[in-house]
């Protein structure tokens, strides 16, 4: 199963913010974490993560710093800011609403498919 491009794009902000909420991280590790969390279902083209990170940094939701990695190379680490945490809470509310709404309709649809009885009848006005 491959996830729709729009969905990947829409979920990138909360995902990145949430992962950085677990602790500061860098590009490659963030991608590994996404893969782990989604069981490999949510696949990003590696390079596309970076423009997203830069956008979030520019809007002040995350901040970056260069550090020496254990490999000896310079590595750019990102951490979430207070504004980012607020944004994350907001995203969470929105996604929960979307999720709950979809859940309800899924079960309703499943019910209809099983019994043939509509759970909901639109009122005529």
């Amino acid at each position, binding site marked *: 199963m491959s996830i729709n491009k729009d969905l990947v794009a829409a979920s990138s902000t909360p995902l990145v913010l949430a992962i950085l909420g677990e602790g500061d991280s860098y590009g490659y590790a963030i991608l590994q974490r996404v893969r782990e969390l989604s069981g490999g279902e949510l696949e990003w083209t*590696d*390079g*596309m993560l*970076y*423009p997203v990170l*830069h956008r979030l940094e520019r809007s002040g939701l995350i901040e970056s710093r260069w550090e020496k*990695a254990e490999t000896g*190379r310079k590595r*750019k680490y990102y951490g979430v800011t207070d504004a980012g945490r607020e944004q994350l809470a907001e995203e969470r509310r929105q996604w929960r609403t979307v999720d709950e709404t979809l859940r309800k309709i899924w079960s309703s649809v499943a019910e209809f498919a099983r019994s043939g009885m509509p759970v909901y009848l639109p009122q005529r006005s």
Partner: protein
Amino acid sequence: MDPKHPRDLVEDSLEMQIDAWRAHLRRSRAITAPDVEELEDHLRERIASLEDQGLSEDEAFLVAVKRIGAIDALTREFAREHSERLWKQLVLSGDAGYDGAEPVATYGSRTMWVALGLAVAAALAIKVPALFGIPFDPDQTLFYPINISFFTLPFIAAYFAWERPVPASSRAWVAAAFVLAAIVVNVFWAGTPADETADTLTLSILHLPLTLWLAVGVAYVGGHWRGSGRRMDFIRFTGELFIYFVLIALGGGVLIALTFALFQAIGLDLELFAQNWIVPCGVAGATVVAAWLVEAKQSVIENMAPVLARIFIPLFAVVLLAFVVTMAVTGRGIDVEREILILIDLLLVVVFGLLLYSISARDPLAPAGLFDWLQLTLVGTALLVDVLALWAIGSRISEFGFTPNRLAALGMNVVLLVNLAGSGFLLLRFLRGGRPFTRLWEWQMSYVYVLAAWAAVVAFLFPPLFGFE
């Protein structure tokens, strides 16, 4: 899009492959050096992890590159996020260091402070004569118009003398030229009765900057005056300086107008302050700042003068052609007025400038094209108009008499006529005879001397020749 053909990759070491990939990324302006570094770190991490899974070095590289994404897609994505990077910026911000683009005019750099210091010095210098009771009012005295070159040009020359290795002998020549010229014209000024309007002095005022500009040129090219390449750089510099100065002057005008209006709102009239301080200091300072900006931006931003020349050459060609055709069809002759010679001179100056800046940007090795024909049309019609005007004037010139003004205008006309005739001839030879385009280039470069020499004659010899009238 892989950076190289896979077959070549096998023979290269991993480092070379990464280098090639990095070079590919760097080609886009949307991706900066730190971005490349970040992506490279990612690539290496991915390669290491793939190798751990048992892939060979080459396989790991190929897979990692593929996973990071096609370079053009990546570039597009970065460009969307960082659209401002697609506009070349003349970096004047403090944090330029990391960009890798080697900004020339970094804010706070030493060159900037020296340039600003010289601008302030020029602005102060123009107020020094006021200490000796010379008012800044062109109606009262011509002291400032005649000396304006000395309040601006030496500071520009000084900037170049500081900024680049100029041999001591060249420095001495430039300094001597300024000092001598200053002495001579101020003797003229002192020798002319203050209440008289002396035409020769006005001519001196108009022609002096042209001559002294050559001295700035010597400083600009660092004494390497021979070799037309550097001289061409100086021509380019001149055009850009003019454009920058005009832009700064426009901004300055807005600033002064708003300052005026604001203080008027609280009942204060700044007219005298503006006339005595803002305008003279602003002009002197702006010239130096403009010169520094042009130097700073030369590798960052496209030259503007050739772009304008390209836009206006076809338009002027059409207008002149229409003018000549109208004259021929209607049989109207040029109405000989006193100002006609000045008008024609201005026309020739514009055509000369258009041609000069157009060829300054032309690749001399490029084959002849439609645009070269357009240039030839422009030069040809300008010459035709000039000859027609001279013909019309020629019969009446004795009637008007040879005043210094008329002689200066006629001389400039002849100088420009010869230049354009030579240019037209060389253009034609290039277009029809396959002679190299560089001939035209060299012709224009040598003509710099002729122009400066004629200007010197008018500036220094006319006043004594015509008895300072």
